[in-house]
């Protein structure tokens, strides 16, 4: 379930990209480093205005996205909550550093406002083509947390969530939104600071000489001091032992890699956020995320009016894939429908979990246009 939304006060009329900035600042972000690219640029532009106004806030426009994410990792190691935002081509450039963030367990947030691709593709048209890139774009085996947002309020809420999960699990978190949500202007409610949870990374309390930077803990997440705080340790992208020094000893290599998976995968219940609409008695359930989930919600309502027992499972978390929630709706439904603005990147995951148990229908569109409620309704009424 999505986190309950608490009482709200200030209301503003904002773009999705503006809401991302509001969310980031509420979550305690004080560093932004990046390189502009449509349709994410507003996030960077507003950060450039806002960060100098807050204590310790800093901002730097780097020479490319590789540098952008490098600076974010540096700032995070130095104790800041740090983020960058980009779009497809820039996200591709960030992949090596994304892997570095995973293995060094550096909390950070990357917002990818997806546009049509491949390559420079369709700069101002929506798409959902970077889903599997977010999951597997960097080299090597690794776990990762990927969130999405389907409206402007969720851009704010899920950015806060992205920072919280990054800090809690010492890991990069990716927020995927699409061009429509990023550039839609809607009324949103800005929560009071005391109305939502802000999670900060656990810092070590033991004397520095006892501290082992990559030691196993109950949660699998070692405490993390900041550079310059008296805990001097080595950070490396090479596979390392619990002291942080490079190793190729099979037992140490295995221990690190397995912990990196375990620390996220054992807390699936905490990480997996979904919303359900009319799923209790649904025979046919649409599984959707991003802007497409809004089309799906309307289509489900219209289908109900026509007597079809339809429901919607809206994914806020894309990875680790919300298996439990999917299994739950599958127990009743005979059909799952997965509409996406790509050729089937998320339906792969649905099919993997489904494993042939019920029928899975996909609706795929890659013409730079949104999938409309009518297109989903058509399939809903036919199955």
């Amino acid at each position, binding site marked *: 379930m999505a986190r309950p939304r608490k009482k709200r006060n200030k209301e503003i009329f904002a773009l999705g990209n503006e809401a991302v900035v509001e969310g980031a600042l509420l979550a305690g972000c004080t560093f932004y480093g990046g390189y502009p690219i449509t349709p994410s640029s507003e996030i960077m532009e507003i950060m450039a205005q806002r960060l100098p106004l807050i204590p310790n806030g800093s901002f730097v426009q780097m020479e490319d996205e590789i540098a952008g994410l490098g600076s974010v990792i*540096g700032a995070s190691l130095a104790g800041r909550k740090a983020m960058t935002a980009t779009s497809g081509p820039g996200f591709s450039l960030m992949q090596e550093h994304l892997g570095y963030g995973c293995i060094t367990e550096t909390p950070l947030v990357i917002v990818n406002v997806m546009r049509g691709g491949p390559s420079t593709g369709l700069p101002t048209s929506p798409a959902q083509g970077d889903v599997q890139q977010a999951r597997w774009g960097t080299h090597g085996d690794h776990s990762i947390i990927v969130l999405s947002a389907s409206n402007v309020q969720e851009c704010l809420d899920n950015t806060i969530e992205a920072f919280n999960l990054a800090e809690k699990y010492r890991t990069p978190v990716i927020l995927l939104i699409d061009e429509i949500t990023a550039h839609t202007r809607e009324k949103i409610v800005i929560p009071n600071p005391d109305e939502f949870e802000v999670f900060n990374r656990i810092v070590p309390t033991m004397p520095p000489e006892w501290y082992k930077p990559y030691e196993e803990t109950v949660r699998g997440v070692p405490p993390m001091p900041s*550079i310059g705080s008296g805990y001097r340790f*080595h*950070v490396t992208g090479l596979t390392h032992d619990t002291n942080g020094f490079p190793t190729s000893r099979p037992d140490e290599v295995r221990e690190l890699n397995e912990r990196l998976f375990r620390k996220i995968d054992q807390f699936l219940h905490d990480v997996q956020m979904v919303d359900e609409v009319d799923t209790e008695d649904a025979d046919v359930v649409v599984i959707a995320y991003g802007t497409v989930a809004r089309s799906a919600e309307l289509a489900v309502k219209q289908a109900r009016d026509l007597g079809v027992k339809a429901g919607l499972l809206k994914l806020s978390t894309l990875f680790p894939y919300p298996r439990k929630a999917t299994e739950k709706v599958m127990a009743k439904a005979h059909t799952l429908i997965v509409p996406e603005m790509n050729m089937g990147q998320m339906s792969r995951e649905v099919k993997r979990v489904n494993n042939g148990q019920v029928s899975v229908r996909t609706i795929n569109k890659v013409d730079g246009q949104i999938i409309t409620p009518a297109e989903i309704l058509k399939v809903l009424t036919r199955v």
Partner: protein
Amino acid sequence: MVDMKGTQLIHEYLRHNKKFPHVFCAGCGHGIVLGSLIRSIHGLGLSKDEVCVVAGIGCSGRLAAYVDFNTVHTTHGRALTFATGIKMAKPGMHVIVVMGDGDSMAIGGNHLIHAARRNIGVTALILNNNIYGMTGGQCSPTTPSGSFSMTTPMGQMEQSFDCVELCSAAKANYVARGTVFHVKKLDKMIMDGISNPGFGVVEILTPCHTQYGRKNKYKTPVDMYKTLKKDVIDIDRYNKLSEADKAKKVPSGVFVQKDEPGLEEKFYEMAANCQGGL
């Protein structure tokens, strides 16, 4: 004669829990740079917690693991980008970046010129051995025309970068060139680089006998040090030479020395003004 005092100083800064021995070949200049770096930091009276050593990938990049500072071994070519984030986040920190010639001028060339243009207050030590050491001796952007490497078996046809000219043109605050043969001067350059408020670059000529020397008719590592002694001369002496003689020598010394504030200083001053104006 063993300099007991010098030896002890190094030990004070080495990581005893690190799995020694180190990775450097016998005769490699990288260890001399490490010694020089430690003497410079010690000479400036900096505490270990005030210093962050950020390194790229290559033999040079391994240097960071051995010393008891805050150390970050980053990705190939990108060390300066991490350093920029660290410096912006902790302006009080002395951020020192260690890179190879391939690291800093091939894959990381763009970051180098932009760090210089941005004048971020970090110090870059560029360990120039004219070759890719760690990957087995392929040519680098500083491999001299005509010399041999694994990927220029018939001799390098491309021109090579002059690190000092590159960084000077890109507007770094402090640009110097030293060698691992002239260690006293090198110590001073690194100290001045660290003390400089903006972007400081010290290009350090350091031999890689294993990869460069063996391909280019240097019989022993000692021959390579002798060449440094013979060919690298002070900038003042160099300037007095005829053009023909200049071609045979490499100038060393301090080429640029400005005291412009670093980017982080300017940023926080601007931010303080903005916040005061609220």
